[in-house]
């Protein structure tokens, strides 16, 4: 098991390194002059040149990468080109916000989609299954910007249940922020719902075919015991992995949702960074996203291994 963890950690580092390289190269290709963006369209050429030199943009690319990586590893994530603020504090704070949103999304999405998936799986090919499948697809079929719009209209403007806007102030705790998290979390849930539900359903259907289900049934166990005790612990394993993978998306990929609700998460910060060609910011956000993804993946693998004796006792 420790060997397994060590291997996974090694892969995680490798992934981070590769991703950081990809991001570095891609961001370097982005058109638009950083200095111009920072100093505005009215700035003069000497001022621009001075700024470029100050930012080290006149250095060769590999050198820039190595020095950036070195500084990143020592905790110096650089200064945002556009705001002039240190990147680390900014990104970590937004990462915290993203975690809150991701957390609530998972709190809603996991039980809901598992429930729907298990029910659909047990009723496979029955009308209820089709209803759940089409219903969850209809929800996911609507782009998140439309879902968000509808949710705001209904829950904020008509029912006055939740605020239309989620711009929480810095340092707001989870429970304090809860009312504002609900609508974006619901929107994200809708995106996840169909996929997780379908996966869970598939897992349940697949496991229901296994010989051990027959063994358990023929022991004379009640159906709820067969499902609850035997089927679910095996059927939900793949779902766990997918939820973990979706965690990366929840942390860094809620670009549209965070903009629609003006939620101060990493996704909105990323659009800001991209629009302003803010390289240090982009790189830090991307790495945090990948790190979240990789850690969640690692966590899922460990959980998977923990729940799955075949791997745990390898």
């Amino acid at each position: 098991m420790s060997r397994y963890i060590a291997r996974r950690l090694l892969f995680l580092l490798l992934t981070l390194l590769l991703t950081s390289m990809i991001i570095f190269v891609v961001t370097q290709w982005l058109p638009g002059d950083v200095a111009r963006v920072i100093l505005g369209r009215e700035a003069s050429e000497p001022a621009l040149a001075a700024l470029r030199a100050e930012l080290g943009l006149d250095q060769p690319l590999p050198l820039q990468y190595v020095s950036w990586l070195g500084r990143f590893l020592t905790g110096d994530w650089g200064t945002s080109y556009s705001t002039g603020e240190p990147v680390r504090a900014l990104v970590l704070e937004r990462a915290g916000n993203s975690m809150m949103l991701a957390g609530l999304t998972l709190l809603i999405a996991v039980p809901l989609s598992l429930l729907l998936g298990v029910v659909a799986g047990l009723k496979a090919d029955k009308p209820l299954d089709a209803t759940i499948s089409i219903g969850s697809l209809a929800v996911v079929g609507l782009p998140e910007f439309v879902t968000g719009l509808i949710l705001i209209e209904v829950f904020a403007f008509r029912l006055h249940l939740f605020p239309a806007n989620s711009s929480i102030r810095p340092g707001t705790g989870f429970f304090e922020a809860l009312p504002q998290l609900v609508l974006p979390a619901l929107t994200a849930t809708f995106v996840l719902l169909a996929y997780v539900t379908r996966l869970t359903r598939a897992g349940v259907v697949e496991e229901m075919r296994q010989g051990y289900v027959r063994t358990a049934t023929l022991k004379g166990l009640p159906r709820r015991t067969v499902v609850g005790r035997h089927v679910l612990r095996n059927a939900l394993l793949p779902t766990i992995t997918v939820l973990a993978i979706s965690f990366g998306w929840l942390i860094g990929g809620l670009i549209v949702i965070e903009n629609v609700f003006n939620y101060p998460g990493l996704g909105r910060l990323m659009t800001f960074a991209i629009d302003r060609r803010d390289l240090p910011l982009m790189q830090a956000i991307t790495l945090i996203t990948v790190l979240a993804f990789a850690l969640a993946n690692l966590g899922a693998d460990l959980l998977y291994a923990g729940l799955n004796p075949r791997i745990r006792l390898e």
Partner: protein
Amino acid sequence: MAGNTTGGGSQPASLATHERRALPAVFTRWWHALRELYARPSSALGTTLVLVFLAMALFGPLIAPYSATEQISGAARQAPSVQHLFGTDHLGRDVFSRVVLGARDILALAGLGTLFAVVIGTLIGLFSAYRGGLTDEVTFRFFDSLLALPALLLALLVLGVVGPSRNSVLVVLVIVYVPIVARVVRSVVLSTKQKGYVEAARLQGESTASIVRRDIFPSVTPALTVEAGLRFSYAIFLVASLGFLGVGVQPPNPDWGLMVSQARPYVSLTPWALYFPAAAIALLVIGVNLAADGLKRVMLPGREV
């Protein structure tokens, strides 16, 4: 494949279906697949939706009463009526015509993007996995790293680099989906590689290219078809999202995502201009998903969706 969910035992081998031999094999297979798709209500619904949109894409100009870009003078912001089924948008363009004509755009774009991604991903997956070794390891490490990035984020970065245009969106779709397709292909190749007929071909001195083409590729196609269906549905979504973020297809093209995005500030003035294209996206995504589910049942019997 129908409903054998409990119990095991030996399903009588003799339940195998007869194969019709009158028509060319490919044609028969597709006809067969279509018939199977229509055997279940949900995949029938999905297939119908897809076919409807396909018809729109093919015959759009015959269906649409107006051109997609014509700004009918004096007709801006009109509510749905007999004249304008889905109303008109803020510039006086007929929303129904735009939705109908937009079908070709999104199907072509998502379709081509998927196609390229599938072709490239398949080639990489086939040869990399069949050969194995260090190149394979490195390639897929790289792909894994790409997959660690949320698709939209990657898309935004890439679009930032290549600039927004229809071709850029194609490039994005390819970059985002090639790793996924390659992985699917790879997993099939790795299992097929072990099969007796592949080893037999190797023992008979067949070349790698010939084995990959004749023995391995055909077994990849079912999984590939299903994956292509799924990718296609995600591609629709991604194209729409990019259009919404304003970095995808350029105005005044009737791209549904762009239409939604453009109509959003006008939502209180011309809600129809937002909800109809949004519904079109939703219906197409639902349709493709249901059809892909059905396809999976037909192509990969026994494996769950």
